C-alpha cells in the first residue's frame, strides 16, 4: 500500500482495459449503461492495478454490473453484497473493493448489512443505482418509491413512506456520502473518482432511469429545461445557489432552510448557506437530505459529507500487528503446549 504512487506511474490503463468484452444485456436506454461507462472511464485513474480491484454485487439489474468489468468480480445473492464485500476486504485489505447494488438490494433485503458496513466504516465503495422500482422482477415498488406510487404490486398506490438513502447512510455513520445522476456523466465521473480516493466507507446514490418500469422518474432533475430549478449542486466552500442564472439561494434560518431570491434587493449571496462537506456534525447533512421532502426545494447533488475516521480494516490489521509485536508470531508449539498440559509416560 505504501507503493501506491509508484503504481500510478507504472500502470497506464485505458477505458477499454476495464471492459470484459461481454455483451451488455440491460434494456435499451437503461441508466445502467451510463454508470458502467463512467466507471470504466474513471477506473484508469483509481491508481490501483486492475487485479487489485474487485466488484461485488447482489441481485437485481444493477447487480449484473461485475460481469461487464474486466476486474475480479462476484455476483452474489440478494442483499448480501456488502457482507460479502466485507469478507473480501478483511481477507485482503490491499484490494480495492467496490459494491454495485440497487435500491431494493441495498435498502430493503440488504439494509442490515448496509447500515453495519457504514457503522464499522469498512473501506468499501458502494455505488447504489436508485431507480425507485424493482426492475428485474418486473415492476413492483421499492423502499425508495415515493408514497402513493402505483405499481404492479400497489395498484391503488403504496401506503409506505420511502427511505431517503442519504439519511440512512449518514445516520449509520458512513464517512463519504454523495449523490449523482446517470444523465450527468461528468458529475458522476467526479463522484466515482472521489469515492475511489476516500479512505473509509464511500456511498454514492445514483439516480438512475428505468425506461421500462419507471421511465422519467428523475427527468425533472436530468432534463435541460427543468434541471436548473430542480437541482442544486453541492460544492465545498461554495454557497448553495441554483436556478438557470443562479438567481436563487438557500439560507439557513435557525434549523430551517429557506429559499431566497438573490435578485429581490433584500437578499444577497452572502446570506446563503455555505456547504461544508467536512463538517463531522451530521445535523446539516440531514437538513440537506431533507430537501427532497420539502415542496419547491431543489434536490442536492454532490458530496454531502466526507470525513476521516479510522476504518475497520486498518484498525483490525493494526490490532493483529500490535498483538504479534507483544506476543510474537503464533506457532503450533505455543498454541497447543503452552499451558495446562501434563505428560503421560
Amino acid at each position: 500500500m505504501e507503493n501506491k504512487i509508484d503504481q500510478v506511474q507504472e500502470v497506464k490503463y485505458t477505458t477499454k482495459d476495464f471492459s470484459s468484452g461481454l455483451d451488455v444485456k440491460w434494456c435499451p436506454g437503461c441508466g445502467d449503461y451510463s454508470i458502467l461507462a463512467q466507471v470504466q472511464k474513471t477506473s484508469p485513474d483509481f491508481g490501483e492495478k486492475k487485479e487489485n480491484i474487485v466488484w461485488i454485487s447482489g441481485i437485481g439489474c444493477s447487480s449484473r454490473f461485475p460481469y461487464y468489468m474486466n476486474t475480479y468480480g462476484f455476483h452474489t445473492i440478494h442483499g448480501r453484497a456488502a457482507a460479502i464485500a466485507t469478507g473480501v476486504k478483511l481477507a485482503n485489505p490491499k484490494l480495492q473493493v467496490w459494491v454495485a447494488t440497487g435500491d431494493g438490494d441495498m435498502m430493503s433485503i440488504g439494509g442490515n448489512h448496509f447500515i453495519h458496513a457504514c457503522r464499522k466504516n469498512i473501506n468499501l465503495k458502494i455505488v447504489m443505482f436508485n431507480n425507485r422500482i424493482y426492475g428485474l422482477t418486473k415492476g413492483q415498488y421499492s423502499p425508495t418509491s415515493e408514497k402513493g406510487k402505483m405499481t404492479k404490486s400497489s395498484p391503488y398506490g403504496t401506503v409506505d413512506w420511502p427511505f431517503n438513502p442519504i439519511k440512512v447512510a449518514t445516520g449509520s455513520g458512513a464517512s463519504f456520502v454523495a449523490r449523482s445522476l446517470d444523465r450527468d456523466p461528468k458529475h458522476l465521473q467526479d463522484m466515482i473518482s472521489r469515492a475511489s480516493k476516500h479512505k473509509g466507507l464511500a456511498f454514492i446514490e445514483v439516480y438512475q432511469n428505468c425506461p421500462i418500469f419507471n421511465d422519467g422518474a428523475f427527468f425533472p432533475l436530468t432534463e435541460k429545461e427543468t434541471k436548473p430549478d430542480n437541482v442544486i449542486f453541492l460544492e465545498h466552500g461554495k454557497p448553495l445557489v441554483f436556478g438557470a442564472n443562479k438567481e436563487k439561494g438557500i439560507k439557513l434560518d435557525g434549523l430551517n432552510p429557506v429559499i431566497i431570491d438573490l435578485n429581490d434587493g433584500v437578499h444577497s449571496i452572502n446570506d446563503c448557506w455555505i456547504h461544508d462537506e467536512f463538517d463531522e456534525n451530521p445535523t446539516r447533512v440531514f437538513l440537506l437530505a431533507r430537501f427532497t421532502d420539502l415542496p419547491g426545494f431543489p434536490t442536492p447533488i454532490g458530496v454531502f459529507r466526507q470525513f476521516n475516521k479510522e476504518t475497520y480494516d486498518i484498525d483490525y490489521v493494526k490490532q493483529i500487528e500490535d498483538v504479534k509485536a507483544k506476543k510474537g508470531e503464533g506457532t503450533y508449539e505455543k498454541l497447543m503446549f503452552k499451558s495446562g498440559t501434563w505428560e503421560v509416560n
Partner: protein
Amino acid sequence: MAKKVQVVDDVTIRFAGDSGDGMQLTGSQFTDTTAKMGNDLSTVPDFPAEIRAPAGSLSGVSGYQLHFSSSDIQTPGDSPDVLVAMNPAALKVNVKDLAQNATIIVNTNAFDIKNLKLAKYDSNPLEDGSLSKFNVIPIELTKLTMSALEDLSLSIKEKEKCKNFYALGLLYWMYNRPIEITQKWLESKFSKKPEVLEANQRVLNAGYNYGEITEIFTTRYDVKPAKLPKGIYRNVSGNEAAALGFVTASLRSGLKLFLGSYPITPASEILQELSKYKDYGVVTFQAEDEISGVASAIGAAFAGNLALTTTSGPGLSLKAEAIGLGVMTELPLVIVDVQRGGPSTGLPTKTEQSDLLQAMYGRHGEAPVVVLAAQSPADCFFMAVEAARIALKFMVPVILLSDGYLAFGSEPLRIPKLEELPEIDVKFRTDPEGFHPYMRDENLVRPWAIPGTPGLEHRIGGLEKKDVYGNISYEAENHEIMTHHRQNKVEKVAGTIPELVVDGDSEGELLVVSWGSTYGVIKEALKNVRKEGLNVSHVHLRYINPFPKNLGEILGKFKKVLVPEMNLGQLSLLLRNKFMKDVIQLNKMQGQAFKISEIEKKITEVFGGNNGK
C-alpha cells in the same frame, strides 16, 4: 486421627447449585486438578438458558458433572456417586439421577423454609427420612465460610460467594487431590484483588482441613492415574478443541483464518476462543447477523483465506441460501453447526442431533455439501482440521456437526505433533495460460484464482455457469452437467477418507451404527453388554456425506442394525434410503445424551430380552 484411604476405580461427582453459585467454576477447577493427576476424565455441564433464574428456584439450578477414572473412559457417567447440593432446589433436581448409596453433601444453611418452598418441598428432606438410602453429609457450608472470613472487610455477599470453594476444598480432601493447582489459578485470577484472593484461598484451605479434622469422615478415596497412551495432554471442551483445530489448520495450510460469526448458544465459545488468536493472524468478524457471518466468510474464501462460520441450528437455517452460493461458486468454506434442541428457539442450552437432515438437504436446489460429525470433545479438534482439509482440497462447503454435549463437555486431548496431522496443501492458480474459472482437475476441482493475481481477472456468481468457461449459461444440458459435477465432486471426497473399521466381529446378529456425540455412551454400553455375553458389533460415523466407502458392505453382513440417535431417526432415514437396509431405531428427544443403561437395555431387547440366549 489417621483416616483410611480407599482406592476406587472411578468416581462420578456432580456439583449443583444456583446458577449464581459458581458451580461451573467449581467443577472445572476440580477437573483441571484431576486432569493433572493423570486420570482419564469426561465432563458435562447442565445449565439453564437463563443467566440468573430466580435464586433458589428449580429452574435456576446449574450443574457440572465430572467422571474420572484410573482406566480409559468415554462418558461423564450415568449416575453420580457424589452430589454436592448447595440448596434444596439443587437436591430436588438431581437426586433422581444418583447411584444407589450415593453420597450427598448438602449445605444445610440453605435449607430454610423459604428455599424449601421455592424447591417445592412440603417437608425438609434432610429430616423426613426420604434420603435414607443415601449417605447424607450435612455441612453448614455458609456458616463455616462466613466464620473463616470473619475478620476480612469484604461484604457479607462477597464472603458468602466463597462457599463453593469451601465445598471444593472438602472434595479435594475426600479424593486425595492437591489444592495447589487451584491456589495458583486463584493467584493469577485475583492478582489485582488481594482481599478476594485471600478469602478464596482461606476458604479452600478451610474446606480441605474440615475433612481432615471433622469426625464425619472416616475414609478418603483415591483414584490412581489412568494408563493412557504416552504423550502430552491437555483438557479441552468441544468448542475449545474446534477453535484450536481451525487455528492448527491455518498453520498447516499457511492460509489466514477468517471467521465470520454471530453469537449463538451453544457455539459462541468458538468465536470467543478464536478472537484471542490475533498473534496467529486470525480474523474474527463478529457480524451483524447469521447471514453476514456466512456471507463475509464466502467473501474471504473468494479472496483466498481459510474461511469459517460457526453457528447452531437456527443460524444454519438463516445461512442456507448463502451456503448454496458457496456450492454454486465452488469455494472452500467450513460451517460449524453446534446443534441444540429445536425447532425454533427450542432448548438452546440442551443437546440434540436433529440438524443432520438440515445439514444434508437444507438448501434449495440440488446443493450437495460435505457433512462431518465429531464424536467427542477432543475429536472436535481433529474434525476441525479435517473439515478444513476437505474444503480446501475440494473447493467445497463442508458442514461440521457438533452439539451442545460435545461443545460444553470436556476430556483430555493427547496433543498430536503437527506432522501427525494430515497435510493441507493449497495451490492458488497463478498461471494465466489456458485458465478458465470452471476448468476441473481429476477430482473435478476448479482452480482457486484469488483477487490480486495478475492476468486471472474473472467473474463468478450464483447464476449457473458454463462448464469450464464460467460464463453465465442457461443451456439445458449444461445445467445437468454442472449439477452432476457438483454432486460427483462431493462423492469423490470418499476416496480421501478412512474406511470404517468394525469394532467387534465383521459379521453377525447385530451391528450398532452411530454418529456424532453418542460415541462414548455406546462404547461404554458395548463394554457392558459384551460382558453379559452378547455379541454386538459397532461402527461409528464421523463422515456422513459422503459415507465411508465400505459402509454398505458392512451393513450387508449383519442381520440387524440398530441406530441410536438423539432425533426421530435422521441417520436411519439416510441409511434406509442409500442402502435399502432396514434399521431398528432408538431415539431420544430429551435434550440430554443417552444414558449407557438406555443403550444396554435396547440392545438386550433386540436380542430378545433374554441376553440373546
